[in-house]
């Protein structure tokens, strides 16, 4: 048992590393091992001919042979046929964040392609050629922006050179637009130039000229998703849709409490069930991120495989016990470990004209993507081949290799569309499991989790407790902030993945006196990154408590927040107080801050910086006597630099607001005796149609480099709503979800 606990603690440590890598945009180990500097890496991705064979295996949807002759393939991102069809490979996983549309748009912009002539395919998984092929930390756009622009610009410069040679004019007398090179009134379509361009040397991507922002023709407008037609007609797209000749379905039963082993199993009985092909015990390696012990059943159809049985357990985590102990600990103003200490908080609080205290609690929550975890695997011809709906297919190569003892060059992974990520599929446990089952079975198998397994065997957003005291001076200014953060740990030393607060967490750098201490409670239940990790929970605490303080000081919250931001400057960690102030002003202006509201209505403002995005949001809610809350409208103002696809960016913000509202309103995961208490959506009630708010999105398209938008619109949602509830009703929410404080919708 100790060995298992150690494995779980080790798995949490590796998850913390993963989260750090994802958020900083660090490539997976497989790529790091190549040790390329950026320049030679770009060259490598620009290699024509032999280099490309690396990227295009048998899985790549090749053009018909006749067309392939004379095809122009300047790099691994792009193929232009003689007939003029432009095929762009989208390198990263599509998890609902719209990247399969956004990535190709960036390439098409620099290529000067006509968007209607572009088709898009998912790129093969090959981080040695493509670099990062993960979706997480809202890093896809910032990490790939330069690489993709240069991939398009390389092709464009070669097509221009081919046209210039045809016309015998200098290249600088040629321009490009709508998939053609122009010289005066004459033009050549890219397809007509393909054969000639293919014969030219590929320039160093680092040397090609990129467009100025004013020259953009495609970026910043609205585009519909490239898979929309397939989605609305029910075409096979997702991992769970994979079909192969002779494919069988597998289920894998793990212990309902993390860390349990298989004691006995009625395998013979199971094997006699109709449709069951095989059943066996998999010992696993004890890592929740890879393969836990369990029983695999392989059957002809999903229904036959879903017959179930029970086994015994290990983890004894109990939410009622953990929250009771946390509340006790929270009575102490200072925790066991000091994270940050600025100025002299104690003295500042003693000298303050007014002090305010509050104890904030938020629960564990699950990712609950609508497509349950699944993966298809086939052990054949010396290869272990996967069709995986993963957020990190590049990292899955190494993870699978390590967990299953297969050399990395004998692992092949196809990335499918992903039916919701939210951070859950940064972990590749279901991929490892499918591989472990495939190693024991002759033929392809599709592992499908039940919803009950998906909710119970998650890496939960970690719960947390904050005991806060703030001090205001005689002029109503915030002068001191003390936070004792009670969080969890799997190893007794370090906060569990997703349960840490960094030293420079806002408002550490904005106040003369600031103290953050923490106390760790032991935990066995796996935790991990959940959409906008850490920010998704602590923004609620920080921005709510700021509002408590401004209310106590009798100040307008917008003025108070702008005062805390202070002079425009760049803080450690990336918060730009000038950009923050701009979105705060925009959100309040668009929401009609200060206007007279109907009885029972209130406006609430919150700001948060995360994942390089600055977002301010204003909620308008009403609360009636029965504590029924309506979120009427949410105004979102964000600065993520220039927008790639306006429709996609707005959609992420609209979805972020619904996700934030849904989660803070009624979602929580609790456990008793190590067992998760919520089994399916009837006990994990996601927001439904009737309760969704009207969301209004405004962007400041500043001159800063473009950054991601999958996450940063979510953190301000909960505090904006709670601040609005206070404005409407005078009730300060300090425990989430709202249903815990008696609210309903």
């Amino acid at each position: 048992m100790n060995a298992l606990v150690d494995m779980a603690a080790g798995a949490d440590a590796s998850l913390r590393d993963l989260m750090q890598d994802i958020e900083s945009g660090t490539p997976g180990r497989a790529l790091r091992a190549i040790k390329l500097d950026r320049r030679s890496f770009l060259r490598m991705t620009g290699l024509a001919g032999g280099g490309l064979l690396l990227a295009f295996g048998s899985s790549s949807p090749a053009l018909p042979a006749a067309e392939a002759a004379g095809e122009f393939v300047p790099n691994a991102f792009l193929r232009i046929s003689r007939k003029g069809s432009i095929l762009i490979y989208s390198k990263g996983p599509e998890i609902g964040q719209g990247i399969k549309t956004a990535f190709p748009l960036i390439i098409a912009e620099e290529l000067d392609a006509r968007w209607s002539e572009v088709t898009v395919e998912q790129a093969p998984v090959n981080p040695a050629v493509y670099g990062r092929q993960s979706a997480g930390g809202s890093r896809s756009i910032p990490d790939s922006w330069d690489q993709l622009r240069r991939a398009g610009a390389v092709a464009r410069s070669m097509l221009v050179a081919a046209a210039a040679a045809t016309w015998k004019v200098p290249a600088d007398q040629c321009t490009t637009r709508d998939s053609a090179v122009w010289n005066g009134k004459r033009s050549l379509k890219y397809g007509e130039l393909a054969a000639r361009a293919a014969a030219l040397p590929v320039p160093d991507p680092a040397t090609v000229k990129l467009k100025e922002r004013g020259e953009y023709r495609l970026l910043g407008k609205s585009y519909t998703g490239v898979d929309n037609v397939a989605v609305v007609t029910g075409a096979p797209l997702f991992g769970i849709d994979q079909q192969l000749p002779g494919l069988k379905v597998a289920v894998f039963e793990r212990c309902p409490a993390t860390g349990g082993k298989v004691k006995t199993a009625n395998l013979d009985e199971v094997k006699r069930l109709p449709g069951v092909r095989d059943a066996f015990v998999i010992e696993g390696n004890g890592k929740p991120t890879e393969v836990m012990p369990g029983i695999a059943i392989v059957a002809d159809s999903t229904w036959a495989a879903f017959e179930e049985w029970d086994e015994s357990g290990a983890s004894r985590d109990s939410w009622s016990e953990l929250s009771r102990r946390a509340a006790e600990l929270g009575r102490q103003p200072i925790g066991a470990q000091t994270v940050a200490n600025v100025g002299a908080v104690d003295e500042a609080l003693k000298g303050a004209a007014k002090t305010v205290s509050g104890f904030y609690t938020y629960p564990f929550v699950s990712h609950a993507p609508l497509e349950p975890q699944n993966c298809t695997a086939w052990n054949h011809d010396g290869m272990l081949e996967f069709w995986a709906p993963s957020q990190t297919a590049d990292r899955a190569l190494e993870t699978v290799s390590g967990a299953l003892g297969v050399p990395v060059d004998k692992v092949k992974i196809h990335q499918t569309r992903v039916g919701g990520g939210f951070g859950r599929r940064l972990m590749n446990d279901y991929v490892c499991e499918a591989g472990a089952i495939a190693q024991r079975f002759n033929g392809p198998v599709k592992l499908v989790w039940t919803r009950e397994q998906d909710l119970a065997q998650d890496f939960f957003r970690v719960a947390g407790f904050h005991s806060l005291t703030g001090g205001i001076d005689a002029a109503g200014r915030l002068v001191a902030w003390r936070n004792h953060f009670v969080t969890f740990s799997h190893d007794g030393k370090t906060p569990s993945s997703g349960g840490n607060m960094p030293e420079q967490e806002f408002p550490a750098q904005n106040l003369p006196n600031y103290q953050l201490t923490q106390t760790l409670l032991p935990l066995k239940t796996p935790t991990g990154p959940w959409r906008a990790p850490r920010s998704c929970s602590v923004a609620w605490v920080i921005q709510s408590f700021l509002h408590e303080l401004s209310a106590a000081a009798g100040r307008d919250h917008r003025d108070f927040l702008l005062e805390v931001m202070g002079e425009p400057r760049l803080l450690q960690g990336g918060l730009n107080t000038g950009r923050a102030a701009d979105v705060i002003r925009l959100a309040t202006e668009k929401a009609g801050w200060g206007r007279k509201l109907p009885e029972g209505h209130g406006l609430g403002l919150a700001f948060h910086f995360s994942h390089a995005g600055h977002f301010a949001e204003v909620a308008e809610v009403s609360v009636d006597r029965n504590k029924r809350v309506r979120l009427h409208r949410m105004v979102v103002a964000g600065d993520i630099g220039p927008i790639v696809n306006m429709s996609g960016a707005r959609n992420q913000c609209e979805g972020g607001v619904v996700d934030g509202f849904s989660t803070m309103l009624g979602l929580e995961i609790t456990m008793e005796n190590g067992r998760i208490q919520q089994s399916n959506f009837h006990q994990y009630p996601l927001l439904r149609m009737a309760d969704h708010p009207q969301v209004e999105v405004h962007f400041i398209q500043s001159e800063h480099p473009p950054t991601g938008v999958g996450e940063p619109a979510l953190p301000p949602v909960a505090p904006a709503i709670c601040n609005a509830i206070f404005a409407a009703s005078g009730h300060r929410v300090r425990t989430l979800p709202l249903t815990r404080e008696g609210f309903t919708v």
Partner: protein
Amino acid sequence: MSTLTLRVNGRAQTTDVDPNTPLLWVLRDSLGLVGTKFGCGMSVCGACTVLVDGEAVRACSTPVANLAGRSITTIEGLAKSPDRLHPLQQAWIEHDVPQCGYCQAGQIMSAAALLSRKPKPSDADIDAAMAGNLCRCGTYQRIRAAIHTAAGRLAQEKA
């Protein structure tokens, strides 16, 4: 196991399954129609919504034994032809509704049942008819707009 004939998207389909098997798994595993999705297995998420004689039904909890002789329409059979999508499908594309897209087939089938019953639905009608369909990505605002657009277009077609 028993032989059963189902009428799916206008075609007679014969399968040999346990009659208690939910329609969802017959569609996905036996007939290869994977547009209908598995989400919860207990009729609470709506990802598996199909039409049975024009009514929205959750395929994950409907045993095939109950369906002999009835007309089943899945997302694959909603369009009259591949180049003539249903107005709901067109509106879904134009409003750029999908994020991950996993729930959308079920959403569209629920909306199709609604429009066949109520060609000009109000917001309240939409709330009621779509209450059984979860969207984890939170695309409700666009779903509602797309249903109104499709309703308008259907009215035009009839006029």
